[in-house]
């Protein structure tokens, strides 16, 4: 069986390695597919649904981050429908929690904000739910602000897969889902947290941040996580 397959992305014929996902194949060719939960080096989960693409012959949309390429596959990454859905997903993310960019530690360095700008989200059509989301300020170095969490689970995965501590999990259901530390402990009371900060560096928004950083000061180093994974060979 050949280890290379031929696929079409937006009409262009490309070669990809068998076993690659659509997102990996597209990214390797310098193409952009929006995503928030994906971080190179961590197991893809297809949670944010921003990378949904159209695949010819399949009636439903498929997440590019978890769908492996197949020989002869024809993928569409940009269409009016996809643009509309992606904008709607972002709007729903903004409406679900309390995202106040102006005073956020990650303002101007936030993946959610950058994506909204790139995809042309100029306003949110849905009523904001203004949940009382809370913060965990108990840790000496870091802070968790649920108001800014989009439940991408990058922190959950990086902690479990790379650090091996598995401090983070998601509790609850649906819109009531919350990131929890161990079995819903205060972060400072965690028995497994090593204080490595990988969760903070992986977080795409200001939900996990260094303590004491003022507005606009938190710049995440997601590429460090990817390099670390590649260096350790945690995942092929």
């Amino acid at each position, binding site marked *: 069986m050949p280890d290379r397959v031929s696929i079409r992305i937006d009409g262009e014929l490309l070669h990809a390695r068998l076993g690659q996902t659509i997102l990996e194949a597209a990214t390797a060719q310098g193409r952009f597919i929006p995503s928030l939960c994906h971080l190179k080096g961590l197991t893809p989960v297809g949670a944010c649904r921003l990378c949904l693409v159209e695949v010819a012959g399949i009636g439903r949309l498929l997440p590019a981050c978890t769908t492996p390429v197949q020989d002869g596959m024809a993928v569409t990454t940009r269409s009016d429908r996809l643009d509309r859905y992606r904008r709607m997903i972002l709007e729903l993310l903004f409406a679900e929690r309390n995202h106040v960019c102006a*005073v956020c530690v990650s*303002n101007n360095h936030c993946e959610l904000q950058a994506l909204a700008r790139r995809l042309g989200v100029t306003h949110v059509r849905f009523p904001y739910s203004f949940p009382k989301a809370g913060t965990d300020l108990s840790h000496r170095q870091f802070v968790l602000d649920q108001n800014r969490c989009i439940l991408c689970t990058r922190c959950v995965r990086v902690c479990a897969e790379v650090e091996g501590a598995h401090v983070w999990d998601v509790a609850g259901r649906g819109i009531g889902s919350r990131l929890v530390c161990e079995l819903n402990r205060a972060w400072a009371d965690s028995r497994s947290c090593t204080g490595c900060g990988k969760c903070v560096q992986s977080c795409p928004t200001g939900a996990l941040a260094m303590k004491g950083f003022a507005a606009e000061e938190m710049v995440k180093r997601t590429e460090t996580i990817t390099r670390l994974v590649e260096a350790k060979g945690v995942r092929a």
Partner: protein
Amino acid sequence: MGHTIQIHHVTRIEGHARIDIHLNDEGRVSSTQFHVTQVRGFEKFTEGRPFYEMPAITARICGICPVSHLLASAKACDAIMAVQIPEPARLLRELLHCAQFIQSHALSFFHLSAPDLLLGFDSDPAARNVLGLIEKHPEAARDGIALRRFGQQAIERLAGERIHPAWVVPGGVNRPMSVDVRDQILSELPLAHSILRRTLRMFKSMLDQFPAESEAFGNMPTMHAGLTDLDGRLQIYDGIVRFIEADGRPAGRIARPLEYSRMIGEAALPDSYLKAPYFKPRGYPEGIYRVGPLARLNVAETCGSAEADRELAEYRQRLGRVVNSSFFYHYARLIEALWALERMEELLHLPEILDRHVRAEAGVNALEGVGIIEAPRGVLIHHYRVDERGAITGANLIVATGHNNLAISRSIQQVAERFLENGRISEGALNRVSAVVRAYDPCLSCSTHAFGRPAFRLRLLGAGGTVLDER
């Protein structure tokens, strides 16, 4: 039968307000009320936030003087961290504050009040605005815009943004000043200097044109409060809050910020979202005091810079050691802007201001912190309580316009009594009622700007509460 005049809304102020003037059966003013008609809720919705976010959040209270809130908030956070910030950071914060004083005072004088002063209180209301000013007095309008730009540009050069910069942080500032920025600001000082000299000359030459206004624009004995250093010199970033009597005798002082509530009480009013602070030892409402440029120059012995001190001496020669007419807020404002400019020059020439150590780092070392500064409009107090993790459990903010609330109300009454004739509101009288509010340069919202149409509404109510006239 008596009635009430209502001014809804007051124009050329920052924010929204309404004035009610109640008349008795003889058509004389029986009482006046100054209503601030918006609620902001900052003290409540910041509960639970990490304390170090407070400067960025509270700066959003105001788009005109965000720097004031940034600084007061950062000082309160410094107190919670229990750190003494590096000296270069203290100097840089003061430099930023001086730039803000200049831009804010320029806005108040030229953009908001000059239409009354240069075009006349009774001039055509359709043209009595900054556009009318551009038409009739283009030089003054140009000066105003250039002076404000100087201040705003200095803020941008130092802090990265003109409005809501993220530069001021708990523990200091987040980057040092470069030599280029210092040199740029220094090169722009002479232009601003010449504008201020020219404007002061012009204003002094006009003083005689407003005998009635000088006499009746909040001309009343009240206490005054302002920040000075130990030697009595004018201070805006740090110092002791001194209270003086209307005749200049010392009345009290706040030497430790945490003890502010021993001197200042806050009364909640039934008909306004703005509380009325008062001097506690004297009780409410006898403890009325004023803050802002007029009060600061009354409280300070000297400005502490050569040219501003010469102007201050002339000011006192003309008006006395303690000036009690709020009309002269304008005059005091110009002298202060001149002082701020001289202070900027002095600060920029200090070698240590370029030092690269500009931030102290610490966690929560005190569960309570108070930051007091002088905003352009007067004393500004930020008071936070936190739990041991650093989450805000309580916040109390006392803004300059609050301190002046009682004085503004009383000034409105005085102007209404002096300029209303037989229960009729002439347009000029109406404008004077608004203008006396403008003299205090109140910041009510503080982030919305009224422009063009009156942002003040005036209602004339009968003794039975019926609306007889409305403008």
